[in-house]
């Protein structure tokens, strides 16, 4: 079967994705801060370069898939970390192993968020990420914001996830021309270590986002509901899909934005 790399594969959606890919007989390389086959910090340039080097050593014949799932919430109190991990930890890594993906006609899935459609992101930051891409400069800007303000933190989180989705749309056409498909999932609120740790205003925000498939019950999706779609996106079965932002949120986006059909 195939060789896959998954970031953030030690917990939550990433761990479920690793489990599902392995169940299909694939070799999976988990990249995480702790408990990974490669332990590295994707929020740093050195960490990313180390991962890229190790993946080339571990999968010299190429990668069938890359799942970029590692991320932090805007409530983590460190907004440069949100920028560096959520956006650059994906785009720089994917670009760094693109040669491995080309070798095997690989697939990429990145984890965005369904909050991108809710208009709460700092679009100026999203524009800087996509159009300028200067990590140090953007980190310096967000370092000057209130690190503890949940609303500010969420606006930067959404900006990184919006920029990520737009990055997918921008690179997917030409990566596909070289045999590599790139898609994103935009999950709703999922039961993970990240969402489990939310308190106060952040918790209230989570609860204010109803999930139609969970009507009358919990306002959190289970990791395997997202991981199943990711596993499909990085499989050969999703052959015709490229450049899609797939909302995997139990219908929250449909509920709140029914008129947005495209």
């Amino acid at each position, binding site marked *: 079967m195939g060789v896959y790399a998954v970031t953030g594969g030690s917990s939550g959606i990433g761990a479920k994705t690793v489990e599902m890919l392995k169940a299909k007989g694939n070799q999976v390389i988990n990249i995480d801060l702790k408990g990974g086959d490669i332990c590295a910090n994707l929020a740093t340039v050195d960490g990313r370069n180390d991962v890229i080097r190790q993946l080339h050593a571990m999968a010299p014949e190429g990668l069938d898939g890359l799942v970029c799932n590692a991320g932090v919430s805007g409530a983590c109190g460190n907004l440069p970390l949100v920028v560096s991990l959520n956006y650059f930890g994906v785009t720089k890594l994917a670009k760094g192993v693109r040669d491995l993906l080309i070798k095997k006609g690989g697939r990429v899935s990145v984890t965005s968020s369904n909050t991108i459609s809710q208009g709460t992101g700092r679009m100026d930051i999203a524009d800087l990420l*996509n*159009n300028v891409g200067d990590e140090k400069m953007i980190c310096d800007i967000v370092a000057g914001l209130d690190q503890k303000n949940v609303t500010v933190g969420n606006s930067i989180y959404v900006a990184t996830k919006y920029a990520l989705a*737009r990055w997918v749309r*921008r*690179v997917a*056409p*030409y*990566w596909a*021309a*070289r045999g590599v498909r790139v898609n994103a999932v935009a999950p709703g609120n999922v039961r993970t270590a990240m969402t489990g740790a939310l308190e106060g205003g952040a918790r209230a925000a989570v609860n204010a986002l109803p999930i139609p498939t969970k009507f009358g019950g919990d306002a959190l999706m289970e990791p395997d509901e997202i991981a199943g779609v990711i596993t499909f996106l990085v499989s050969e079965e999703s052959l015709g899909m490229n450049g899609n932002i797939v909302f995997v949120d139990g219908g929250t986006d449909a509920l709140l934005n029914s008129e947005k059909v495209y």
Partner: protein
Amino acid sequence: MNLIEKYIEVMQNKDYEALAELFSPDGSLTDYCPKGTAQREYHVYGQEAINMFFRNKFTFGRFSISEAQAINDHQAKYVANYGGYLVMAIATIRRTTEDGRIERMSVRPK
């Protein structure tokens, strides 16, 4: 003929293949001018995408340029026609590769 003059030539000729060849494999073209029209900005990444995108724009998108003139060795001005909506535009080569291809180009309203 320098790079910006070649850009003008291929744009005037609607030669999307030659246009793509002016760019590096991962080169990008960002055009902010359509924002004032009914269209969205153009953000086109990669040689193949530039080829495909402008094939569509030149063929079906009624996109063309006229009155083009090089301002210096990395900038040109022209009237860009976005489906009948005219914008005075300035194209700037922001970065090139060692082998002389465009790595990053932006087009903005003058």
